[in-house]
C-alpha cells in the first residue's frame, strides 16, 4: 500500500511540478521546497490532489512541511490519515 501511494504521489509531482521531466532522479526523502519544486500555489495544488485522490481531509494544521515536504513524508501522512478514517 505505501509503495502504491508513493508511486501515485511521485507521478503527480513529476507531471505537475516537473512537467514530465524525470531525467533527474527524485528521491523519496528529497525536499520539495529546497528543490524549488513547489511554491505557495503548488502547496495548494498538492493539498487539492491529496484530498481528491486519497479522500483525506486536510485541516489547516496538517499543511506543514513536516507532513508534505517529500514523497516519503506525504505517503506517511496519507497512510496515517487513511488509518484514522478507516479506524
Amino acid at each position, binding site marked *: 500500500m505505501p509503495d502504491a501511494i508513493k508511486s501515485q504521489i511521485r507521478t503527480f509531482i513529476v*507531471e*505537475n511540478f*516537473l*512537467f*514530465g*521531466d524525470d531525467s533527474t532522479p527524485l528521491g523519496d526523502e528529497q525536499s520539495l*521546497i529546497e528543490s*524549488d519544486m513547489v*511554491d*505557495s*500555489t*503548488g*502547496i*495548494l*495544488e498538492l493539498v487539492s490532489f491529496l484530498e481528491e485522490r486519497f479522500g483525506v481531509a486536510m485541516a*489547516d*494544521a496538517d*499543511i*506543514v*512541511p*513536516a507532513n508534505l*515536504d517529500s514523497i516519503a513524508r506525504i505517503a506517511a501522512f496519507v497512510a496515517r490519515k487513511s488509518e484514522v478514517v478507516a479506524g
Partner: protein
Amino acid sequence: MCGIAGYAGALPRDEVAALLRRMCGAIAHRGPDAQGVHVSDGAGLGHRRLSVIDLTADGAQPMHSACGTFSIAYNGEIFNYIELRKMLEARGRRFRTASDTEVVLQLYEEYGPDFVTHLNGDFALAIWDERHKRMVLARDRMGVRPLFYTWHRGVFYFASEVKALLQVPGVEAEIDPFALDQIFTLWAPIAPRTPFKGIFELPPAHMMIVENGEARSRPYWALAFPEGGERDPRSEGGIAEELRTLLEDATRIRLRADVEVGSFLSGGLDSSIVSGLAARMAPNGLRTFSVTFDDAEFDESDYQQTMVRALGTQHHSIACGPEDIAGIFPAVVWHMERPVTRTAPAPLYQLSGLVREQGLKVVLSGEGADEIFAGYDLFREARIRRFCGRQPGSQIRPHLFRKIYPYLSSLQQQTPEYLAAFFGTGVDAADDPLFSHRPRIRATAGAKMFFSRDLRDQLAGYDATEEIASELPEAFVRWHPLHQAQYIETRFLLPGYILSSQGDRMAMAHGVETRFPFLDHRLVEFAAQIPPNLKLKGLREKHILRAATADLLPQAISERPKQPYRAPDSASFRGPVGDYVDEIMSAEAVTANGLFNPLAAAKLLEKCRRDVATGFRDNAAFVGIVSTQLWAREFSNMVSNRSREASV
C-alpha cells in the same frame, strides 16, 4: 525625445547615407516628426525627431556647432537647459536657436567630455568631434533613455534600439544564452550585456569615447549611500520639507515643453503625488491617463477616480480586457527587444497608445519612488526575514508575511511553517549581499527548469547572482541593509526592466515621451541620504514621502498600502486570441530554437490553458518561454527581411 543612430569608422561614403536612413527608418516610431542624417569623414549621425522643445526647423538634428567642428544627434530632454543656457551666456556664448540641443552642443564645446555632469535630464546622445575624430556617447544617470552599440568589420555602430543595428548588413540577431539566464533569474540582463549576442548597451551614467578604432567607457556618476555609523542630525520635519521642495522643482522643470504635458495616474501613491503637483503647476489644467483591468484582482479604477475628483483633471482611461494582452504581446516583444517573465509591459503599451490618440506626446510618471523611498514589498519582506531569522522557531513572526502580501491569495492560505519555509531562503546568511533579493531570485530562477539540455550545456554552470555580486561597489558592505536592497533594485532592475521594458520602449512605441520627477538625480541623491527608518518605518513603506506630500492627496490615497502594479500573466492567453501560442510553443518550434525542453513546455502550456490557479514560477516560465519564442520569431524574420531587401 527621439531616436538616434550612427557609426564611427571607415565606410564607403556613397552607401552610408542610405544605411543611416534605413537605421533611422527602423526606429521611426521614436520620432515620427522628422528625420535627418549627416555624414562626415569617418562618421555618420542619424536622427528621428519627436518635436517637444522648439518645434521649428531650428531644432532639427543632427545639429552642428557654429564652427562646424561638432555635430550632435540626441535623444531625450535636458530639463535644466534654461539654467545651463544662462550659465553659458554668462560665459560669453551666443545661441542661434531656442532648442535644448544647442545648449548640449555648446556645453560640450565649453567643457569637453565633462559636459555631461552638468546635465539634469533623460538622454542618450552622440557627439561627433571632427577635430579629434572621436565619437562621444553618453547616457543619463538612471537609464531612462536607451543606447546600444556593436562592432562589425572594424566599424562602430550605435542606435537607440537594436532593430536599427540589425539594419547593418552582417549584424545578426542571435540570442545570448547568458542574457537569457539573467532574465530568467533577475528579470533583466546585466548591462552592457543584451539578449543579442555581440550587441551591447551603454550602461546608465556612463559615457563612451570611440577614437582610433577603439572604445573606452567610464561611469560619470554613481549611486551611493551613507556608510555605517554616520548619524543624520536633521529632524524628520526638516527632511520632509527639503524633500518636498526638491520634488516640486523636479516636477516643475519636467513640465518644460512647447507641447502639452499630461500625467499617468495609476491610483497609487506615486503617480498621484506627481499628478497632484503637476495639476497645481499646469495653468490650463492637467490631463491624466490610466489603464483599468476587467479583472478586479488587478484593477485600481476606484482609486483613480478618487484622484480625478480630487484634482479635477480631464481623465482618460483604457480598459485592459481578458484577451488584450495576448493580442498585443507580439508587438510588445518587438518593441522591448528582450524576453520577459511578466506581461506587465503590455497594458502600458496600450496606455501609451491612448496618450498618443489623445494628441499628447509627453507624460509624467510616478516611476522611481518605490526604488528611492523603499516602496516595494521586497524591502518589507527582507526586514521580516531578518526578524524571523533571529527566532527561527517562532510560530508568530511568519504571520507578518501575510500582512505584506494581502493581494496574494495563495500566501494568505499558508500555515506559519510554510511561510517560514518559503521566505526562509538565505535567512541564515544575513551578510549575503543579495540577502534581500534571494526569495525573488529563487522564485524566478525556478523557471529555468524548462531550459533545454543544450542551453544548460552552453551555460556550463554560470550563475547570474555571482555576476551581480561581483558588480557591487566596494563600500556596499558598509551600507545599511535597506540601502543595500535599494541599490540592487535601483542599479539593476530599474534600468534593466522598469525603465526599459515597462518604460521607454512601451511609450516610444507610440512616440510618447515619459518623464520621471522622482528620478531627478538631485532627488535620488537626497533620498539616498535619508535615514532608513524614515523611508521604511516599521513596515510602513515610503513614510517620509507620505509625510512630505500628505496635503496633496485625499487620505484614502496618502495612507493607501502599496499595491504593486501587476497584470494577468498566463491567464491572458487562455482565449482564442492567444491561440498563436500553440504554434510558438509547439514541439517543432521549441525544438527549432533549442532553448527549452519541448515536452516540458507542452505540459506547461496545457497546465496554463486549464482553468487552474497557476503559481509564480509557472507564470514566469510561461511568459518567459512565450516571449523568448516571439523574440526569436520577430527578430529572425526581421533579419531575413532585411537580407531580402538588400538583395533586391
